[in-house]
């Protein structure tokens, strides 16, 4: 596989000339070029928007003109106004900035070639992973460099809060969507028609983030479906012959926002997007953020995905311009596509050696022998590759150098002291207990950000390993039930393709067999002698999650009696865990992460242990106390039975078996 460093050329020739180069991009074959404003008026005049305007006018007894006016305002707020001038400005400044920040920006050449073909053939949707604000700047920069049509990018409305920068982004092709507009029919109609109009005409590749927001943990977030269902609609209604979905994996050796994220996860609020904030952040320019790898995946034909699946003609009996809630079939299809694309992103994500170092380090706190770390890193490299992880490790680079260069780049996280590698939690000695815990948590969460990049590659074999330890049984059926339960519990934490628990289990077993960790027969699974190292490493890797969830469940069963809001829950759990950490009753710093807390809550809702209620515009969560109550204090109970009843659907028994399971979970870990 060949990666091209696009900064290399920039370091050799004039940025100004590059910014002013003759730019005649490759565009969609059926495109009749038009100005951004022409798109807006086409949207306003479209049957879709006009229909909703008339409907609303009738319902509210207002003149359609007023609502039309409103639609116009929405469009003006939303619409991009791509201009070559702004693009050139970005091309110039970003060249300067990127060269400062990054050592290399590596792109897979054949991916760009495939993309070039795709853009000419059908409307294209770019689906990059989202780890940093750099993502979309970098992607546009990349397409400009390769003379491809620049994408229009769905951006959060918050950017408009930034003076000048917001408008600059707009001119570089960003269009802005409000964070929530579920109830606003006019907004929905205008927005979706705006996106669809650009897609249908092949105006430009459409770019958005399936994850919806930057992942603060570097772990892929579960997908959002709204925008995806919008861009899929023109094909499903056969307004276009096909649509290409292009998964793009952008991986950072060092994430620009790493410490901001850690603070945010610990409850220090994210600074509002502001121009002055951006200017303040310029000191990071003196820092080194290593290499970026961009893997442009194989364009996936939506037509191919849909073939044989959506063969009924769901849109034949209603005029296509009427707003229509997608059928269950289609919703399921959209969700499957979303997960599929995220899994492709994960598959193509490039992992740096540092990711391996971080994973090992976190299992060996507070300090680890340097030589041992090197040895372990090399071992983990092999394991990761067996599991299909995509590690960027130059052929001739020795492990020592790789680890050392990781330590240099991430000196803010860990350092080498007397032949030992220790976490960099400065000020440890002289602070109050609370401060020590906080600093330590910061360092651990930052470190975890890198380990997390491995998790989705490891999750299937690891959950089998965890299940093996939990059940202490060799019976495949039992291990599978437990695996399936864990998969449900962690359904918001890791990315699983919906509804294929058994396939995931088999894949996990297959990978474990491949690395000789287990042997399987028709009915049974045995860990091998040699395999115990792997099995325990894998379950230790996921221990923070098992333990963190356990703490959160405990908090929910013990500390809350009534319904609560998310705003109450997060600080509550945080304080609870914080106190335990201060007292030394737990070592699970990661339970402080608001991301984990939210995921755990979402899982409990899905499992039916907590109910979601809406009372006067506030979402309340209502814990099923009976279920949660006896969670804690069951540490010494014998091993659970009844996985089957759990995996066979949720009824009365479920609560009971759920309990058993969580008890079992606790048992193993203590």
């Amino acid at each position, binding site marked *: 596989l060949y990666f091209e460093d696009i900064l290399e050329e920039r370091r050799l020739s004039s940025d100004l000339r590059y910014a002013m180069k003759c730019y005649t991009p490759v565009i969609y074959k059926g495109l009749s070029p038009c100005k951004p404003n022409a798109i807006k008026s086409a949207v306003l005049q479209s049957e879709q928007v006009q229909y909703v305007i008339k409907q609303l006018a009738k319902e509210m007894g207002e003149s359609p003109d007023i609502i039309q006016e409103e639609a116009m305002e929405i469009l003006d707020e939303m619409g991009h106004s791509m201009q070559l001038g702004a693009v050139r400005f970005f091309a110039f400044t970003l060249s300067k900035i990127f060269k400062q920040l990054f050592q290399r920006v590596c792109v897979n050449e054949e991916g760009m070639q495939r993309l070039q073909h795709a853009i000419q053939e059908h409307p294209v949707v770019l689906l990059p992973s989202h780890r940093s604000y750099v993502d979309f700047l970098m992607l546009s920069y990349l397409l400009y460099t390769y003379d491809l049509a620049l994408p229009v990018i769905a951006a959060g409305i918050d950017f408009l809060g930034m003076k000048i920068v917001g408008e600059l982004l707009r001119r570089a092709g960003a269009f802005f969507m409000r964070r929530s507009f579920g109830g606003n029919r006019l907004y929905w109609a205008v927005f979706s028609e705006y996106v669809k109009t650009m897609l249908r005409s092949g105006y430009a590749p459409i770019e958005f983030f399936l994850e919806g927001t930057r992942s603060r943990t570097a772990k892929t977030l579960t997908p959002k479906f709204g925008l995806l269902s919008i861009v899929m609609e023109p094909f499903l209604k*056969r307004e276009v*012959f096909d649509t290409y979905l292009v998964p793009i994996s952008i991986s950072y050796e060092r994430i620009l926002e790493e410490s901001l994220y850690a603070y945010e996860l610990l409850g220090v609020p994210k600074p509002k997007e502001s121009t002055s904030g951006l200017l303040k952040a310029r000191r990071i320019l003196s820092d080194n953020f290593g290499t970026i790898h961009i893997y442009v995946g194989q364009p996936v034909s939506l037509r191919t995905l849909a073939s044989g699946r959506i063969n*009924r*003609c769901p*849109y*034949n009996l209603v005029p*296509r311009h009427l707003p229509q809630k997608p059928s269950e079939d289609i919703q399921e299809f959209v969700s499957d596509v979303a997960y599929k694309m995220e899994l492709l992103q994960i598959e193509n994500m490039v992992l740096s050696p540092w990711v391996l170092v971080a994973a090992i380090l976190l299992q060996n706190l507070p300090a680890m022998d340097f030589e041992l770390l090197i040895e372990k890193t090399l071992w983990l490299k092999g394991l990761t590759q067996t599991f299909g992880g995509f590690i960027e490790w130059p052929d001739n680079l020795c492990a020592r150098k790789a680890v050392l260069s990781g330590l240099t780049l991430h000196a803010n996280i860990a350092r080498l002291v007397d032949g030992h590698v220790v976490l960099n939690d400065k000020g440890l000695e002289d602070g109050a207990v609370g401060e020590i815990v906080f600093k330590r948590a910061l360092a651990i969460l930052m470190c975890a950000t890198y380990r997390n990049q491995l998790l989705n590659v490891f999750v299937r074999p690891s959950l089998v390993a965890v299940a093996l330890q939990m059940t202490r049984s060799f019976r495949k059926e039992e291990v599978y039930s437990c695996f399936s339960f864990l998969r449900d519990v962690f359904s918001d934490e890791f990315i699983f393709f919906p509804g294929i628990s058994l396939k995931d289990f088999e894949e996990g077993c297959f990978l474990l067999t491949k690395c000789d960790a287990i042997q399987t027969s028709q009915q049974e699974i045995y860990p091998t002698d040699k395999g115990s190292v792997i099995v325990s490493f894998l379950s230790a890797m996921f221990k923070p999650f098992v333990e963190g969830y356990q703490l959160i469940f405990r908090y929910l069963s013990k500390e809350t009696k009534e319904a609560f809001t998310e705003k109450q829950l997060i600080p509550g759990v945080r304080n609870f865990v914080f106190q335990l950490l201060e007292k030394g009753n737990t070592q699970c710093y990661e339970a402080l992460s608001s991301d984990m807390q939210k995921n755990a809550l979402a899982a409990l809702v899905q499992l039916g242990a907590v109910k979601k209620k809406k009372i006067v515009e506030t979402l309340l969560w209502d814990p099923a106390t009976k279920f949660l109550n006896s969670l804690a204090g069951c540490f010494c109970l014998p091993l659970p039975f009844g996985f089957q009843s759990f995996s066979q659907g949720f009824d009365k028994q479920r609560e009971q078996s759920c309990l058993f399971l969580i008890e079992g979970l606790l048992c193993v870990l203590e």
Partner: protein
Amino acid sequence: FYKASCLSSFRMQELLKWNGWGYNDSKFIFNKKGQAEFTGKRYRLGGMVLPTFKEWIEKTFGASLEHKTTSRASLNVNDVPPSIVNEEFLQDLRATKISYSQDAEDRVFRAHGHCLHEIFVLREGMFKRIPDIVVWPVCHEDVVKIVELACKHNLCIIPFGGGTSVSSALECPEEEKRTIVSLDTSQMNRILWIDEKNLTACVEAGIVGQDLEKQLAESGFCTGHEPDSMEFSSLGGWVATRASGMKKNIYGNIEDLVIHIKMVTPRGIVEKNCQVPRMSTGPDIHHFIMGSEGTLGVVTEVTIKIRPVPEYQKYGSVVFPNFERGVACLREVAKQRCAPASIRLVDNAQFQFGHALKPQVASIFTSFLDGLKKFYITKFKGFDPNILCVATLLFEGDREKVLQHEKQVYDIATKFGGLAAGEDNGQRGYMLTFVIAYIRDLGLDYYVIGESFETSVPWDRVLDLCRNVKERIVRECKEKGVQFAPLSTCRVTQTYDAGACVYFYFAFNYRGISDPIHVYEQIERAAREEILANGGSLSHHHGVGKLRKRWMKESISDVGLGMLRSVKEYVDPNNIFGNKNLL
């Protein structure tokens, strides 16, 4: 009684090709100079040299005159499955004095329609199952006798009219163990009476279109029903398939034309008690018969509406800068309900196809004029010759009204960027539909196979459907290993208030493919799936037959299919009419 024409002889295969379309004497050939020529004197194109046709074929299909396949010269009688008829039935049949034949050629001729695979079998192979016997009833009573005998001896009857089916409707089910009787209606071809007061005529169902029009014309009338196959297809066939005619805008489709139908079924004769323009007596039983595709019985007599022969006919054509504008214009014409007798919009590929059939021009003057026209349209008006498309028009009626109507339509066309492009282009467009089937025979000689298929679709989906289906064909060809880009072209061929009928031509060069018919069928099937996914119908007028049966349930729902089945069960419980079409 009126006289029957030559086509209704017992052995019509003597006049017609046994392994291709139409008359023996009419076909495309390449003459000694290597130029394409159409033989015979039956068509306007007859005897003319088509100088650009060869180049078009080579360019469009990558075909070469050096690579030729030839059909078997004649039927090999030894290959033909034997006729198995039980002697008791034959005795009974002889007693009725109805003509019959067990001759191999007679039976093979009635074992097929004109689907590509059927013609291919004739050229290179043999059908697994063909009729065992052909009978020629001459009147309604004969049919009643035959159906009674079939019930008595438990035989299978397959009615045969003009044999122009393109839905595999005439193919004998391979697994049919009973004797198959091909009931050829060609001898029932008389106009029984003409009622000038009510403008109706009662006609025997075996009459073919051109004879019907010719004979009615002798009294100054016409039906105006002109399907593209009207030279050979029969009145009974039109009823059995829900046919549509080119001039339906004035005269209506078959369901609008029919006043009364008499049909012989195993359960007895079905007909109404009066011949009225409309009645409210429950669901119209005519609608069980129309489109029944020979599964219920034999249509023997039809009372059909007639009109005085129009005083004046005028062709016309309009060039549009692109297909989108053309469709928008047709939609507007339909909206204003001012469609001429026929209005069709051909896409660019079909326009070029039509152009390739332009005969050698007689004088320098005409060629100069043609050049001037081309210059005006492409250079002066800026139409791209590879994008523009053409609407062809046919006006009919009083001379004065036609001219008025013409102006109205051209005015609308102007609003959509259309330019009048003369009568000649229009007329050639219509000619294409009559000779297209002859062109397929030519293609077959040079490794090019093709077919047409059709659908109906709401106006707002016309463009999407046309684009997607054409694209699907191109892609499927590529995927299936077809070496050369296919011809994939369409026209909007009928307009209605709520939608349009779209007609596709699809052909490709199959050199290098071992099983071209299979590949062809896969692609046609994919194209049909595409049509359905785009909100198009299973068929506008070709019918279902056996070719499109698989999509019936999806098309009319389970219950709908059950309704049709229950009618079949009541009317024909022993499946005497066992051609297995439709259901």
